[in-house]
């Protein structure tokens, strides 16, 4: 039954050797994940591509967000590289899976920092994973560009190397309150919010603004990200007799809530945060999503050319309507391209160029300019949407 001791040591040490050897390898051998189909004629043989690092979830609990990002990236790069790239250099990205786990995002951060080809980093997805890596990016002099990081302290974590084009709650929440209280006229709303840094901050800012507008929040229910059964919480909401429901939710949980409303005996006007704006919310919410109002940042069916062009191209490529995350990813790549044009394809260049950007076209915001103090988008615009016949359409008031 027992092998000799020597053979076992041999196995163990062989394994260890393989692992360590392989550890050293991937940095050198890993090919960029993006596959470009630019015509050969347009390529300059000598030009090295410009590389963007992406740290995000491709496996694990949040893998679906990483998948959406990829779609947005690929579409944007197809356009940019199809048009010859920047100064004749193609842009590519390296997507490293972090599972949105801080243990792995710091490893990825070190990997990117150490890879001189990488001039800017995008991600990570969750606050825990992103902010654990911020200091590493700051020390490495590599800009960390967050797309989903609305945590109020995110852009403080890595000093002037941390930027984000995610609108903050301080912008979104008051806008949401204005829609719900001032426009729709809810005086006694109930709020359901996701118990994460995002949901909680949004709720607190919403409450502040709603009160100042004269509304009283009769019930507030926080719920965990993995929650699927809202019936008990909704029964509590029902007992508070609200005149409307505010959803500070993501797509899947928001859809579950609207579906379970009827079961809880609730029929109320619903006003949701922009995060609900996704084909998934429509798909998962089905009929129950009809009539939900959103304070959102863009409307896919908006006839404005900047939006229509994007949505059409996206639909042609993926046969689905883009969601908030894919659109953000698309926007971000386009934005970074502008930076590179101004500041050059270096890390320092990216940092300085971000502050100089002015009115960069964006699908979501229309035009983006960064606030140099907060390193976030200044004055983002919002639109009101309503779900009608399974689609988001502009809401023109009652």
């Amino acid at each position, binding site marked *: 039954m027992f092998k000799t*001791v020597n053979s*076992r*040591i041999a*196995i*163990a040490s062989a394994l*260890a050797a393989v*692992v360590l050897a*392989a*550890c050293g390898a*991937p940095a050198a051998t*890993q090919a960029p994940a993006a596959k470009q189909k630019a015509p050969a004629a347009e390529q300059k043989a000598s030009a090295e591509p410009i590389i963007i690092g992406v740290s995000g979830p*491709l496996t694990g*609990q949040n893998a*679906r967000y990483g*998948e*959406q990002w990829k779609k947005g990236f690929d579409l944007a790069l197809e356009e940019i590289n199809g048009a010859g790239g920047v100064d004749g250099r193609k842009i590519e990205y390296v*997507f*490293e*899976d972090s599972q949105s786990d*801080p*243990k*792995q995002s710091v*490893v990825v951060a*070190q990997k990117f920092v*150490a890879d001189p080809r990488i001039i800017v980093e995008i991600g990570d997805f969750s606050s*825990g994973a992103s*902010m*654990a890596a*911020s*200091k590493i990016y700051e*020390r490495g002099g590599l800009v960390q560009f967050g797309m989903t990081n609305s945590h109020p*302290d995110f852009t*403080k*974590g890595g000093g002037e190397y941390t930027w984000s084009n995610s609108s903050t709650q301080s912008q979104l929440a008051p806008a949401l309150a204005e829609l719900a209280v001032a426009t729709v006229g809810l005086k006694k709303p109930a709020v359901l919010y996701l*118990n*994460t*840094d995002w*949901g*909680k901050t949004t709720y607190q800012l919403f409450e502040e603004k709603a009160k100042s507008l004269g509304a009283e929040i009769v019930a507030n229910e*926080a719920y*965990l990200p*993995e*929650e*699927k*059964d809202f*019936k*008990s*919480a909704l*029964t*509590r909401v029902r*007992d508070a007799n609200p005149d409307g429901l505010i959803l500070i939710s993501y797509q*899947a949980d928001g*859809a*579950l809530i609207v579906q379970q409303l*009827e*079961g*809880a*005996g609730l029929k109320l006007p619903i006003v949701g945060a922009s995060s609900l704006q996704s084909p998934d919310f429509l798909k*998962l919410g*089905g009929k129950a999503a009809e009539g939900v109002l959103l304070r959102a940042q863009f409307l896919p069916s908006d006839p404005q050319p900047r939006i229509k062009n994007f949505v059409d191209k996206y639909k042609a490529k993926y046969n689905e309507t883009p969601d908030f995350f894919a659109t953000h990813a698309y926007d971000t790549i386009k934005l970074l391209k502008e930076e590179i044009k101004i500041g050059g394809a270096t890390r320092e260049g990216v940092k300085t160029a971000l502050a100089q950007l002015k009115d960069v076209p964006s699908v979501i915001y229309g035009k983006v300019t960064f606030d140099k103090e907060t390193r976030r988008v200044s004055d983002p615009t919002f639109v009101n949407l309503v779900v009608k016949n399974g689609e988001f359409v502009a809401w023109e008031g009652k």
Partner: protein
Amino acid sequence: MDPTLRTFIDQTINGLAIGNVYALTAVGLALIFGVANLINFAHGSVYMIGAYVGWVCVTWLGWPLPASFAAVAVVCGALGVALERFGLQGLHRKARIAPLLATIGISFALDQATQLLFTANPQSFPNPLPAERIALGGVSIGAIDVLIAVVGVSTAGILFGFLRFTQLGWALRATAQDRDAAQQMGVDVEGVNRATFGIAGVLGGLAGALVGLYFATVYPTMSFQAGIKGFAANLLGGLGNVPGSIVGGVVLGLVESYGVAAFGATYRNLFAFAILIGVLVVRPAGLFSRRRTLPPEPMTGTFVPNSRPVRVPRAVVIGGIAVALCFPVLVSDPYLLQILTNAWLLAMVALSLTLVTGTAGQSSLGQAGFMAIGAYASALLSLRAGLPFEIALIAGSLIAAVLGTLLVLPAFRLRAHYVAIATLGIGEMVNQVIANWDGLTNGVLGLTNIPPPSLFGIEMVTPRATYWYSLALLLLAALLQLRLLRSHLGRTWRAIREDDVAAQSAGVGLNRYKALAFAVSAGMAGMAGAFSGHMYSYINHETFASSTSILALTMAILGGMGNMVGAVVGAVLLTALPEVFRGLVDYRYLVYGVVLLLLVRFRPQGLLGTV
């Protein structure tokens, strides 16, 4: 109708519906535990696959519900059988920890395979049932509630009939009661084993399909929560007790529902685990145990494998340490340094676990909770009290030691599997409390701007500095642990692990040594957590998730129980493997799961063997 009464009835219906689903999951686990004496960590994955099969049938193929459910039953039944045949067969003769680990590997592989096939996006599973609701007085019931009730009750009925009136059902019950006697009746117990996994697969798959339909969504990660809740329900009713599991599921559903009604939805899991631990403490064998149990046979050769540990020559260990110390001089790649820094920190956790689980025999799945306590204590002390890093780190690990031990105290009367589940529950509770205790922990917003590790006021922030700092802490911890293991204390702990009854007869009081083991272990895990927190500069309630506990257990088992060198080797391997497989991108956790499974198959006692 009186609104309070109406609320109560509504919450009861909610609880019954979700409890029904818990019960279906728990029954499968109970059958498997009864027949194969195994906690099946892959059961949640079977449940998830059931949901996907149902979704494919209804939305892609357009099949009616009954046909779809039949397909779910067939596919998941076959999956259960395959799981036993390819993943576990032959392992049940090995130490019990081996098949447990094998099921963890299988669940990794299944979850990842599903994600590759259907993407990670949640898929819409529209409910084909009529939307009308049946009004009963002031409350109303939807068609889906009725469906769940019908499927739940009829499945329980069919299962009852199967167990009572069919030959295979008898064989199954007979095998669960007395394997040897069943064999003497001519029962092919291996076949019964397979059949049990098949039936459990059917039940788990149906539960998954029902939940998919109930919430109109299916997604690959639905497996973990389902598995945990299934265990909880099963444990409430008593491992291996089928009717008990049904009641346990319903009780859990109701308790959660009433708990949410009283305190809010964020307390759902806190409630579930609190009730679980409560029941474990009061009635360790479940709510319905009848048996007054005398001390069972020793765990020797059953849970912890017997093995001759590989004697790693001292020169190799010292050489290894020397190489580790010199590594940053030779290699400057911060990526590699960060991987190894992570490996050293996880090695500390693996060491802490191999002490309490490997050496003292108290299987812990709560190390992440201890890490979180240490991290928050240290971060808060340096943020709010302005303590220097070194002091905060030590204080943090001491607080983790004391709090951790106090939390585990009620679980001291439990044994083997039960300790594992109780500590898993405790770990989850720690994170839930952190998320809900805004005043102290800043709630879900987490703690930002935690000062980086420093030494005598000098910040240690470069990859090399953190590498050496964490390695030094690891070596210090290892040295302390080695000293403990070489003292009478190590001997006493190992004696308790091997045979607590015999140890007692030599005069050893068990609680004292369990407490000491948990204190040292929690302190060490707390230190690793504290260092990580300062290194990350930001922590929240999700930073130290339960998956870290399972990872640490995997490392300890892989290295060999109680084997310190093994724990470090396991930590380095399991930290490095996913990095090695980075080139595989989406496939890496699939490969990781398969590698884990293979390692268990060929070296169930761990790479370096039990000490």
